[in-house]
């Protein structure tokens, strides 16, 4: 089994937000929820870099560790998913998540949090694969169809890579060797406790 990861090559990301739009459209993500976003560091200054960020599907996932109802599970491909039927919308996963991945519809009392929503690595949820119920709760399940996450698949500069960690790390390493520089794999140290060796 693969160990699925994301890697955003900041030297290539042009902040076009196509990944964000693709994700929104593919899963019909409601207004106000952003499973993926592009953050620009040092905007307008030397060293400006854009990084597309979503749930990184961490090793020893902090969200899963703190969830009071233990509604997270990790698939065989090491995708971190959660069960919305169990989630109580307490918001704890957001406090623990290093990347601000968990999102909450404002449907609770006093405009509080509803059930958490986050990037599923296009792998749906605990419902039957590719069922209507799964689509309504979690969006489409491309992984079950043998496809990779849409954000990475349609990235025009191929800055955003998705797939087995070994393979995308190799692609990144070759790129850095080719062009002679790279700012590293953003979030990898925090999420996976390892960085691609270049």
């Amino acid at each position: 089994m693969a160990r699925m990861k994301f890697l955003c090559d900041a030297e290539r990301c042009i902040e076009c937000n196509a990944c964000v739009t693709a994700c929104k459209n593919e899963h019909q993500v409601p207004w106000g929820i952003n499973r993926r976003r592009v953050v620009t560091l040092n905007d307008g200054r030397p060293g400006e870099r854009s990084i597309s960020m979503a749930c990184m599907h961490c090793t020893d996932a902090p969200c899963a560790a703190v969830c009071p109802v233990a509604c997270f599970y990790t698939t065989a491909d090491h995708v971190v998913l959660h069960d919305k039927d169990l989630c109580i919308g307490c918001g704890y996963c957001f406090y623990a998540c290093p990347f601000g991945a968990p999102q909450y519809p404002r449907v609770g009392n006093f405009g509080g949090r509803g059930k958490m929503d986050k990037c599923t690595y296009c792998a749906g949820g605990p419902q039957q694969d590719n069922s209507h119920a799964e689509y309504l709760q979690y969006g489409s399940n491309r992984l079950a169809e043998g496809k990779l996450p849409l954000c990475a698949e349609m990235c025009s500069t191929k800055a955003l890579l998705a797939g087995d960690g070994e393979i995308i790390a190799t692609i990144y390493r070759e790129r850095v060797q080719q062009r002679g520089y790279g700012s590293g794999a953003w979030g990898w140290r925090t999420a996976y406790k390892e960085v691609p060796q270049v």
Partner: protein
Amino acid sequence: MIALPWRPAALGLLLLVLPLAAPAQPVHPAQDGPPALTARGPDASELELQRALQGGRIEGRVTIPDRQAASLVQPAGRDWRVFHNRTLVWIGGIAILGMLAILAAFYLIRGRIRPSSGLSGRTVLRFNLLERANHWMVAASFIVLALSGLNLTFGRHLLLPVIGPEAFATLSLWGKIAHNFLAFPFTLGIVVMLLLWVRDNLPNRTDWAWVRAGGGFLGGAHPAAGRFNAGQKLVFWITILGGALVAASGYMLMFPFAVTDVAGMQLSHIVHGVLAMLMIAAMLAHIYIGSLGMEGAFSAMSNGRVDYNWAKEHHSLWLEEEVARAGEAAGAPRSAKAAGAD
């Protein structure tokens, strides 16, 4: 034209100096990388390590109207995880189990405290209807708030394995809803409590004597006390100050990111969790001494009346005041009439 012969030479030199620029050469780790890399700033893993060690976040700019999304990496989440999963569990476990152990030991050693002169059968009003209603509004909301709060810290380990994930999730969801709504009567009750009782809870010299006499808990002698003794004053101020801080931090959590960012939310949760655990432990002692631990105490909050002997032993100064006031009230018309005659 003059520069032409110079350019290739400079380029060649650069290639020599910067082995990285040459294609197909292995890249060194950033630490011993050439200046060309360093000039681009620290790389991702260096920056993440630095923030993890020194605090702070890696933040940028986003085009979506959600300011929280501008934070790329917040390593502080790791500390909050340790707080939530370990520190708070230990604080709560020690505070609550420790208090239960102390109370059990106290009960075994001292038994139920009874008025040494027995009950007289005559009673005196201690708390009026407003005071009692407010007390029970605070008490009832506190109990539900405490249980639903404890569930978020301990339920996953204690209750979930027993009742299963579905039942536990349903319970926790109702707990969260109750927790959110009961925050309001609790806060209101705290404010009313402050207005009703602050006057009788200001520390004075009697309290010092009471504390030095150990409150009469171990001896058996009854130190003098006004309407509230030093122990009750302590409970009062724990409730008022602790309650105010717990309420304030709770509203921060209830209206997420309304006035703060993720660091503020984490801090609110830490303040809320620690104070709530300590308050629960303190209230266990309050509940014990107001019910099982002392005969004659509970009626003060049920029908509002306490036995005359109980009052004499535990709140001698207050009883004197009450008796004097009752005497004045009862005696006022008589003494007015008799003023000339006497």
